[in-house]
C-alpha cells in the first residue's frame, strides 16, 4: 500500500477483493458454526480477525510525509472518500443505538435521522468545497489563516477539542462495550483493547492510514447492518428490499399497539437505564410544542454536522474542489444506505416482539414461558432487559417488559432466531463503526494540537520529523485520556454524541460559514462569535443538566446549540461591524477561496 498512482487506480480491484474475502470469511464462520464450533469462539474470530485487518492496513499506510500524514496526499477519489466519510460519520451511536432509539422513541426520534442526513446539504453548499480550496490541514488552520492571529486559531482549537473529545469518549465506550461482550473480557479491559486497535490504525499513517482503514470499515459495517435486516424481512415475507416494503409492517404495528394498549398502560416500576415501550411507532404528536422539539433537535444536529472538524477534514483529502463536492454527495449516499434501513430494522424487531401470530412474539405470553427464552436469559443476565409481573396475572403486558434501546441491533439476530454467525457479524460491524469514528476524532484532535497549537503557535520553526513525532505522541496521550474517561462511564452513548454536535455548532458554525460567505467578517468578530457561542451554550447546558434549571421552551440538554448558535451569530456580526473591516489582502483571499480555479490559499506543505 505504498503511495503511487498505481495504487489509486487499483482501488476498486483492491477493495473488491477485500469485500469478496470478507464474504468468504462469513461463509467460513457459518460452516464452522454448523460443525459445532461454539458461539463464543465465532464472536472472538469475527472481532479479532477484522481488527487485525484494520491494523494491517494501518501498518502498510505508514508515512513520514507531512501532506500524507495530514491530508492523505490529497489524492483520495470522491467515491472512496465518500465511503471513508460514511464510516468516519457513522459511529457506535448510529450503528448500535439508532434503531433502538426509533424502537423506543418512535417518530420523535427520527429528528436525529433527518438531522444527521440533512446536515450534509449544509456541508456541500456552505463549507466543504471552500475549505478544500483553502488548502488547510485542519479546521483551525482555516480560522487562523482567514481571520489571522493566534487567538482566533486558539479559540477554534478549543472548540474542536471540546466537541471532539466529548464525542470520542462515547466511541471508545462503545468499542469497550462490544469488545467486552464479544471477547468475554471486563469492560475496562475492553476499552483499552479498543484503544489499541484504534491507535494501530491511525498512529503510523495519520490521515492516509485512517482513510484506507475507514473504507475497509465501511464495507464491514454496511454488510453487517444490511444482512440481518434483509434476512429477517425475507423470513417474514417482506422481500429482499425491506426498506421499500415495510409500510405494511408499520400499519400492522398500529393495530398491535391498540391490541397491547401501548401508551395507555404505564409502567408501574422503574429500573435504571431500562424503559418499557410507551410511545406509538409512527404517530407524530399533533401539537406545535412537539413539532418545535422535532425542529430544534434537527437543526442542532444539522449545524453540528457541518461544524464537526473530523467530518470537514475528510474533504481536505480529495484531489480537487469539484471532487470535494461530489464526495459529499457520495458520502450521504453511503450514509443513507444505513439510515434508511434503521427504521426498517426497528419496525421488524418490534413486530417480532409484539405480534402474537409470530413464534417470536412475547407480549401476551406467560411470564414463565418468556423467561425461559434464550435471548431473554442472555440479556437479563447482563442487566440489559428485565421482565416483571407488575399486576401479578402471570402474563407479560407491554408495560412489564423493560429493556435498553441499545440492544435492538445487537439482540435482533437472537430475537429473530437467526444463526449465531449473524450475531458475530453484527458485533464486528458495531466494532468497525465505533473504531472508524474514534479514529477520525482522535486524529482531528491530535492534528489540531500538533499542527495549530504546537507548530503554528508554539514552535513555527519545528522540523517535519519533530512535527510528526509530536502528532503521534499527542495521539497516544489523547487516546489514553479518552479511554480513561470512557472507563468512568459518565454519560450514555447517545447523550455524549448529541452534546458534541451542540458544542461544535455553538462555537464553530457561524465563524466557518461567515468566513467564506461574508467578507466583512473580521478577527474580532470571529473570536467573539466562537467564545460567546461556546460559553453561552456551555453555561446553558450546565444550568439545565446539572443546575436544576427548567429548560426554556423545551430546549433541553440535547438541544443547547439552539442557545449557542444565535448568541454566536449576533456576537460575531455586532463585533465585526464595530471593528475595522479586514485588510484588502484578506478580502482578496476570500475572493480566491470562492472560485475553484487556481492554487490553494495555503501551499501544499505548510
Amino acid at each position: 500500500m505504498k503511495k503511487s498512482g498505481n495504487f489509486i487506480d487499483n482501488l476498486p480491484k483492491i477493495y473488491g477483493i477485500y469485500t469478496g474475502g470478507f464474504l468468504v470469511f462469513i461463509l467460513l464462520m457459518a460452516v464452522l458454526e454448523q460443525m459445532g464450533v461454539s458461539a463464543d469462539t465465532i464472536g472472538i474470530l469475527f472481532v479479532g480477525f477484522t481488527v487485525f485487518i484494520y491494523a494491517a492496513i494501518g501498518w502498510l499506510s505508514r508515512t513520514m510525509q507531512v501532506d500524507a500524514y495530514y491530508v492523505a496526499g490529497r489524492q483520495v477519489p470522491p467515491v472512496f472518500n465518500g465511503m471513508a466519510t460514511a464510516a468516519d460519520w457513522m459511529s457506535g451511536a448510529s450503528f448500535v443505538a439508532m434503531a433502538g432509539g426509533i424502537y423506543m422513541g418512535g417518530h420523535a426520534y427520527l429528528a436525529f435521522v433527518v438531522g444527521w442526513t440533512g446536515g450534509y446539504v449544509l456541508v456541500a453548499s456552505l463549507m466543504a468545497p471552500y475549505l478544500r480550496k483553502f488548502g488547510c490541514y485542519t479546521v483551525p488552520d482555516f480560522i487562523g489563516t482567514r481571520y489571522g492571529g493566534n487567538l482566533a486559531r486558539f479559540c477554534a482549537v478549543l472548540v474542536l477539542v471540546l466537541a471532539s473529545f466529548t464525542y470520542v469518549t462515547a466511541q471508545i465506550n462503545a468499542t469497550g462495550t462490544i469488545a467486552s461482550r464479544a471477547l468475554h473480557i471486563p469492560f475496562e479491559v475492553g476499552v483499552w483493547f479498543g484503544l489499541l486497535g484504534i491507535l494501530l490504525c491511525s498512529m503510523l499513517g495519520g490521515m492516509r492510514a485512517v482513510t484506507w482503514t475507514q473504507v475497509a470499515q465501511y464495507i464491514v459495517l454496511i454488510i453487517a447492518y444490511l444482512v440481518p435486516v434483509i434476512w429477517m424481512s425475507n423470513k417474514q415475507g417482506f422481500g429482499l428490499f425491506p426498506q421499500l416494503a415495510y409500510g405494511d409492517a408499520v400499519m400492522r404495528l398500529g393495530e398491535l399497539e391498540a391490541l397491547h394498549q401501548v401508551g395507555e398502560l404505564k409502567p408501574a416500576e422503574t429500573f435504571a437505564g431500562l424503559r418499557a415501550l410507551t410511545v406509538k411507532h409512527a404517530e407524530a404528536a399533533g401539537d406545535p410544542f412537539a413539532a418545535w422539539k422535532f425542529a430544534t433537535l434537527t437543526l442542532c444536529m444539522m449545524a453540528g454536522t457541518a461544524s464537526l472538524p473530523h467530518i470537514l477534514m475528510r474533504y481536505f483529502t480529495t484531489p480537487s474542489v469539484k471532487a470535494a463536492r461530489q464526495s459529499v454527495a457520495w458520502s450521504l449516499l453511503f450514509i443513507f444506505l444505513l439510515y434508511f434501513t434503521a427504521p426498517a430494522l426497528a419496525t421488524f424487531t418490534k413486530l417480532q416482539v409484539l405480534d402474537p401470530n409470530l413464534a417470536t412474539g412475547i407480549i401476551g405470553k406467560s411470564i414463565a414461558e418468556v423467561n425461559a427464552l434464550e435471548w431473554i436469559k442472555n440479556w437479563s443476565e447482563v442487566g440489559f432487559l428485565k421482565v416483571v409481573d407488575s399486576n401479578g396475572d402471570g402474563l407479560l403486558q407491554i408495560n412489564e417488559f423493560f429493556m435498553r434501546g441499545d440492544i435492538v441491533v445487537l439482540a435482533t439476530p437472537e430475537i429473530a432466531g437467526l444463526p449465531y454467525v449473524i450475531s458475530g457479524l453484527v458485533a464486528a460491524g458495531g466494532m468497525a463503526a465505533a473504531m472508524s469514528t474514534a479514529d477520525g476524532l482522535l486524529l482531528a484532535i491530535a492534528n489540531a494540537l500538533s499542527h495549530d497549537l504546537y507548530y503554528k503557535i508554539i514552535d513555527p520553526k519545528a522540523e517535519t520529523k519533530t512535527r510528526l513525532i509530536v502528532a503521534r505522541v499527542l495521539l497516544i496521550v489523547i487516546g489514553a485520556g479518552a479511554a480513561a474517561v470512557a472507563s468512568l462511564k459518565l454519560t450514555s452513548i447517545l447523550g455524549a454524541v448529541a452534546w458534541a454536535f451542540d458544542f461544535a455548532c455553538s462555537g464553530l458554525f457561524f465563524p466557518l460559514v461567515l468566513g467564506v460567505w461574508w467578507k466583512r467578517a473580521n478577527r474580532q468578530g470571529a473570536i467573539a462569535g466562537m467564545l460567546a457561542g461556546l460559553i453561552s451554550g456551555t453555561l446553558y447546558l450546565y444550568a439545565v443538566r446539572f443546575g436544576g434549571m427548567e429548560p426554556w421552551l423545551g430546549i433541553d440538554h440535547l438541544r443547547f446549540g439552539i442557545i449557542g448558535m444565535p448568541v454566536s451569530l449576533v456576537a460575531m456580526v455586532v463585533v465585526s461591524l464595530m471593528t475595522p473591516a479586514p485588510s484588502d489582502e484578506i478580502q482578496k483571499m476570500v475572493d480566491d477561496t470562492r472560485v475553484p480555479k487556481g492554487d490553494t490559499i495555503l501551499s501544499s506543505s505548510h
Partner: protein
Amino acid sequence: MSNGSDHATHWRRTRALMWVTLTIWFVFSFLVHWFASALNESSFLGFPLGFYMAAQGSLFIFVVLIFWFARAQDRIDRECGFAEEDE
C-alpha cells in the same frame, strides 16, 4: 480571463444556487415534519406519510439534492471560466 465582472457573475450565480439549495433543504428538513401529524392521515407506499418522510422521504431528497447541487455548481464554474483546469 478572470476580471472583476467575471468574479461578480460567478459569485452571484453561486449565491443564487446556494439559496435554491437551502430553500429545498429547509422545506424537507423543517416544513414537512412540522405537519407530520396531519400528513400521517394519508399514506404513501403503504406507510403513514408523515412517518415515511422522516424515515425515508427527506433522506432520499437530500441525497438527490446534493448530487444535483454538485453538477449545477460545476456548470456555473465552467461557464464562468473558474473550473479547475486539470480535469
